[in-house]
C-alpha cells in the first residue's frame, strides 16, 4: 500500500506526522469557519467546562504542550467515512483492552489518545468531549477499534428499544440514594 498523504482520506502516517487534533478551545472552529465560540447565545455552549473537569479528575490533557494547529479535517482520520461500522450510543462505555501496547505508533494519534483515556470505563460522549473529537469521528474510530480488539464496548441491547423494568428499578433506587 502506498504511503498515505495528508488529505487523501486515509489515516495519518506514523512518525513525525502533524497531530490532527488541537486542544485549544475553538481551534477547529477557527479553521473551519463554521462556528465561533461566544458568537451568540445559540446553544448554551460551555466551552470553559473542560479545563475544570480535567483538573477535578487530575487527568493529563493530551498533547497539551503542542502548539500546532489542527492540520487535517476531522474525518480524514476515519478515511473519509462518516458512518461507523455499527451504531454506537453516546452513553456506550468503552475500555482499552491493551494496556501495555505492542507498537502503538502504527495507530493514528487519535486512537492512541483514546486508548490512553480509556484505561477506565468512559462513555463515547466523554471520549468525544475530553479528546475534542467531533462525536461522529469518535464513533467511527471507537467502532473500528472495537473491531480490531483494541477496546471493549459495553452497549445495552434493549429488547423493545427501551430499558427493561429491572434496570429502571435500579436507576430509581440509585437516584433516591444519591
Amino acid at each position, binding site marked *: 500500500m502506498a504511503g498515505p498523504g495528508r488529505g487523501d482520506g486515509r489515516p495519518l502516517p506514523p512518525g513525525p506526522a502533524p497531530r490532527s487534533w488541537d486542544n485549544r478551545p475553538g481551534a477547529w472552529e477557527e479553521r473551519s469557519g*463554521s462556528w465561533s465560540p461566544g458568537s451568540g447565545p*445559540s446553544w448554551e455552549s460551555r466551552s470553559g*467546562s473542560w479545563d475544570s473537569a480535567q483538573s477535578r479528575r487530575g487527568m493529563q490533557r493530551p498533547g497539551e504542550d503542542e502548539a500546532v494547529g489542527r492540520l487535517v479535517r476531522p474525518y480524514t482520520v476515519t478515511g473519509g467515512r462518516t458512518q461507523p461500522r455499527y451504531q454506537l450510543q453516546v452513553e456506550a462505555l468503552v475500555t482499552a483492552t491493551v494496556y501495555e501496547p505492542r507498537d502503538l505508533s502504527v495507530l493514528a494519534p487519535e486512537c492512541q489518545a483514546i486508548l490512553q483515556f480509556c484505561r477506565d470505563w468512559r462513555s463515547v460522549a*466523554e471520549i468525544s468531549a475530553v479528546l475534542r473529537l467531533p462525536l461522529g469521528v469518535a464513533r467511527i474510530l471507537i467502532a473500528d477499534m472495537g473491531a480490531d480488539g483494541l477496546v471493549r464496548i*459495553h452497549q445495552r441491547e434493549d429488547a423493545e428499544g*427501551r430499558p427493561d423494568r429491572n434496570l429502571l428499578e435500579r436507576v430509581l433506587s*440509585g437516584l433516591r440514594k444519591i
Partner: protein
Amino acid sequence: MTSMKIVVAGGFGVGKTAFVVSVSEITPLTTEAQMTVASTDVDDLSHVPDKSTTTVAMDFGRITLEKDLVLYLFGTPGQHRFWFMWDDLIQGAIGAVVLVDTRRLADSFPAVDYFEASGLPFVIGINGFHGQFPHRSKDVSDALAISPDVPVIPCDARNRESTKATLVTLVEHAMSVQAVGRH
C-alpha cells in the same frame, strides 16, 4: 458495566445546563457534532450564505448510581433544526425532562411535539425563576395540550434536591408507561 441516559430538553436559556450541573458528579462536558447542510432536510441554513457545516454542542453530566451502573444526562439543543441529534439521543433513553419557562411556553413546543411523536416517556419541569411558580401545573398542562398522564411538576433547576425529585418522577413515569404498554 451498564450505562443509561436521560435527555434534558427545552428552549434556549430555560435552565438545561443548570439542571445537569446541579446533579452531575463531574463538571458537565460538552461534545460537539458537526452537521452539514447535505445531512439535513428541513434545515434553514439558507439565511447564512456559503455555510456548509455547523457545529452543535451538547452538554452532559454523569451520575454513578451503583458500582456498575452509570446514568448520563444529556442537555440537548432545543431548536427544531437539531432534531437529527434527538433521533440519535433518544435511542434507548429512559425518557426526557422537558424544562419550561412559563413566560416563554412556546419555546418548549418543539420538544413536547417531538417526544409525543416518538413515544419517549417525558415529564414537564416548570423551572421557577427566583423560586417563583406563578402557574399551576394543571394550567401548564392545558396550555401545552398534553395528556393528563404526563407529570407536570415545579422544578428549580439549580437545586439538587429538586432536580433529583424531577428525575425520580421521570423514572417512575417511564415505569408506569411501560406497565400500561404491556396490557
